[in-house]
């Protein structure tokens, strides 16, 4: 039996199990760059307007940090700039999670054992999932290029954009394969994989925002942008990307060969024989279950805030030469607004979206605890359903608060260290924390679904994605202003520009409270799974 025996059968099994997820992910991913291109062309019909928006973007360090530089002031160039970073995230993170799902998750649940006892080679499961995920990424690239070309964009740039995003997908699929071998649980594997992504993202973000091109070249997420679709394609950049994918895939296979099934590389550690005196309430249990994530997310955002805060504010004390961006700043913050405050606030708002994603993750703990049957153990004791749910939700509300404190403090520190003005730290901290009520609304949506409509709990993510898309298209002016009001972040005042209003904050908090109450009431009335 060769090491790859059965890989074909396993690949078909993966396609069968994910026959819904794969198209739901791949089709929009392949098509949305073309709709961005359409919006860009409609919004900036002249070469003049394209140049001005490109100049605006290049002058905005927060934009440089999140999306990287604009390499060409054309419809294609701006499309590549708009989707380059978010597309790499979409393809990269989903590819990584898919690989972990079919490796570490299967091992943890014992499904892998069921297959391993059949005629399946040692390397077959990993080869099968990597094969499927690589193939889907290539399909996305082909489809994306075809749709872009059919919309009238240059062929070379269309192909380059498709391949650059697919390369990001394959790279992080391979990262997923490695971390799945090194860790002992799916949660740890996902955490490690996302951490690797964040580190590479930050390296690129700091490099691009700080004008340190060499730094961006240290991250594969910098490489995919520097393939320069629609801006004099540099095809040779595909070579290091391919080499990295090959290297990581080989490493993952080598690790598979060396370890036992279900084991990680690190040996299991023993825990305490008795519980600490404090572990005596559902709240203490919830804290115990969430605290690792709270710490990891806080640490991640602290590092990110420090780096981005410093990068964004470096050399931005004065005025900027882009009249359009000055107009925008003046519109939001009045004539006296300083660009650096605008950019800092902009950065914090972008990162608050990710904090909201963490809030959703925390609230959905309710669902995973229930479906795994662990909720039964607690609810068969004197703990009521409301108390159990609220224990998790209190932490799901406080956790993002801690993360925002870490983010705000670190961003203020980064700003202070690069400008010498540490006095603004409290204000920057406030600028981060002010997003908390909006984050709570997102957490509340997930809580309401997990409590009242458990089968639809994952739709909490759908709402998040829809809001993100609305926001993106709203910035391009393609969405009606009243519709944008459904996005909680629309209502957050720009405090660093001197805006402050408690009404929307109270309103958002009330909405979050109502949503949470709906979830708890729903949970109390229904059967548990």
């Amino acid at each position, binding site marked *: 039996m060769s090491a790859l025996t059965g890989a074909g059968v396993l690949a078909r099994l993966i396609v069968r199990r994910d026959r819904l997820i794969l198209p739901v992910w791949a089709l929009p991913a392949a098509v949305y760059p073309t709709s961005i291109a359409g919006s860009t062309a409609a919004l900036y019909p002249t070469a003049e307007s394209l140049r001005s928006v490109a100049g605006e973007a290049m002058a905005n360090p927060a934009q440089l940090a999140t999306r990287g530089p604009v390499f060409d002031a054309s419809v294609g160039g701006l499309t590549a700039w708009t989707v380059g970073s978010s597309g790499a995230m979409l393809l990269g993170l989903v590819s990584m999670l898919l690989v972990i799902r079919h490796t570490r998750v299967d091992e*943890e649940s014992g499904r892998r054992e069921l297959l391993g006892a059949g005629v399946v080679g040692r390397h077959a499961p990993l080869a099968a999932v990597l094969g499927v995920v690589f193939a889907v990424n290539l399909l996305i690239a082909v489809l994306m290029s075809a749709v872009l070309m059919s919309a009238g964009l240059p062929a070379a740039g269309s192909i380059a954009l498709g391949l650059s995003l697919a390369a990001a997908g394959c790279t992080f699929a391979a990262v997923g394969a490695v971390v799945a071998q090194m860790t*002992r*649980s799916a*949660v740890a594997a996902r955490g490690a994989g996302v951490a690797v992504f964040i580190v590479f993202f930050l390296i690129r973000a700091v490099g691009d925002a700080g004008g340190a091109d060499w730094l961006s070249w240290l991250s594969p997420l910098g490489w995919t942008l520097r393939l320069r679709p629609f801006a004099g394609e540099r095809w040779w950049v595909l070579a290091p990307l391919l080499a990295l994918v090959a290297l990581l895939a080989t490493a993952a296979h080598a690790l598979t060969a060396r370890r036992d099934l279900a084991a990680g590389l690190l040996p*299991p*550690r*023993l*825990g*305490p*024989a*008795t*519980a*600490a005196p404090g*572990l*005596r*309430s*559902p709240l203490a*249990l919830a804290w*115990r*279950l969430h605290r*690792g994530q709270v710490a990891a997310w806080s640490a991640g955002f602290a590092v990110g805030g420090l780096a981005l805060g410093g990068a964004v504010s470096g050399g931005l004390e004065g005025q900027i030469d882009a009249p359009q961006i000055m107009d925008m700043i003046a519109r939001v913050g009045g004539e006296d607004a300083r660009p650096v405050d605008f950019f800092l606030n902009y950065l914090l708002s972008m990162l608050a979206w990710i904090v909201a994603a963490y809030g959703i993750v925390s609230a959905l703990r309710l669902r995973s605890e229930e479906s*795994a*049957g*662990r909720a*039964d*153990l*607690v*609810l*068969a*004791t*004197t*703990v*009521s359903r409301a108390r159990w749910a609220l224990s998790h939700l209190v932490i799901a509300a406080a956790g993002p608060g801690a993360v925002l404190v870490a983010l705000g403090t670190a961003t203020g520190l980064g700003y202070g260290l690069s400008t010498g003005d540490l006095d603004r730290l409290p204000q920057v901290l406030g600028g981060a924390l002010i997003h908390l009520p909006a984050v709570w609304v997102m957490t509340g949506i997930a809580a309401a679904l997990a409590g009242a409509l458990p089968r639809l709990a994952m739709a909490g993510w759908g709402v998040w994605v829809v809001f993100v898309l609305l926001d993106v298209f709203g910035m391009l002016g393609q969405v009606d202003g009243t519709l944008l009001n459904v996005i909680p972040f629309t209502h957050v005042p720009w405090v660093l520009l001197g805006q402050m209003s408690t009404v929307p904050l109270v309103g958002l908090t009330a909405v979050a409270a109502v949503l949470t109450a709906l979830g708890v009431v729903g949970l109390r009335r229904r*059967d*548990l799974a």
Partner: protein
Amino acid sequence: MTNAISVSGLVKTFGRTRALDGLDLTVGTGEVHGFLGPNGAGKSTTVRILLGLMRADSGRASLLGGDPWADATDLHRRLAYVPGDVTLWPNLSGGEVIDLLGRLRGGIDAQRRKSLLERFELDPRKKGRAYSKGNRQKVALVAALASDVELLILDEPTSGLDPLMEAVFRDSVAEEKARGRTVLLSSHILSEVEALCDRVSIIRGGSLVETGTLAELRHLTRTSVTADLAHEPDGLTGLPGIHDLRVEGNRVSCQVEPAHLDELFGRLAAAGLRNVTAAPPTLEDLFMRHYRTAQPGGRERQHEEAR
């Protein structure tokens, strides 16, 4: 004596599947009650309704004198539950889970916890993810048995235990019984039920088919009789209460209902008994009879399991 559990006419449907179809169940205080039935018969659904994790569509259920849905948290102070498939928190040690569940129930007997850990040979320092199925089961068992409660609800608690640990489990349940606790034991292991239970209820397709003490149930089963006779017997074929009759020359074998033993042995003696073996009815016979007749409903059961 009051009843610890009393259920009547319980109905629970999941979509088009009727998981419980007018179930009756009575468990007296202080008794160990065996709750038997094929897979998908509705045992776990019943247990989940008794624990207030689910609500019945109709029917009446009373647990320790209260309403399992409305009074759930108060009642849970007085009971402990062991699920059939225990999942633990991956990063909590077994000892932490035992202490936590005990405290959430309102206290744990430290001495008893210690002795149970020793008897079940369980290492409490291992993390949840490192335990095998049997060891996860032991964690839940120790947590339940070390709690100071009136009622134990055990849903197939020995499904992952090895025979040695099963014996430890039996001893522990026998001790609980001696302390006057009530035990509802859902199980598939007949020897376990025969060894432990005062009374047994058998359910199938969501309703009760048989209930009573083991002696009463045995009474309902048939004795298998094999006899060597001096002559070929006659008149056996028409006898009431005789099943699976086979006559080969002077040798007779058949199954007979207890009420008709007299007549059978009368006829056999008339033909000159040379040798006879009569196997006592076992719970297994009874079981197989009910399980086999459950087969036509098999498709429905699979449907329910697939949920």
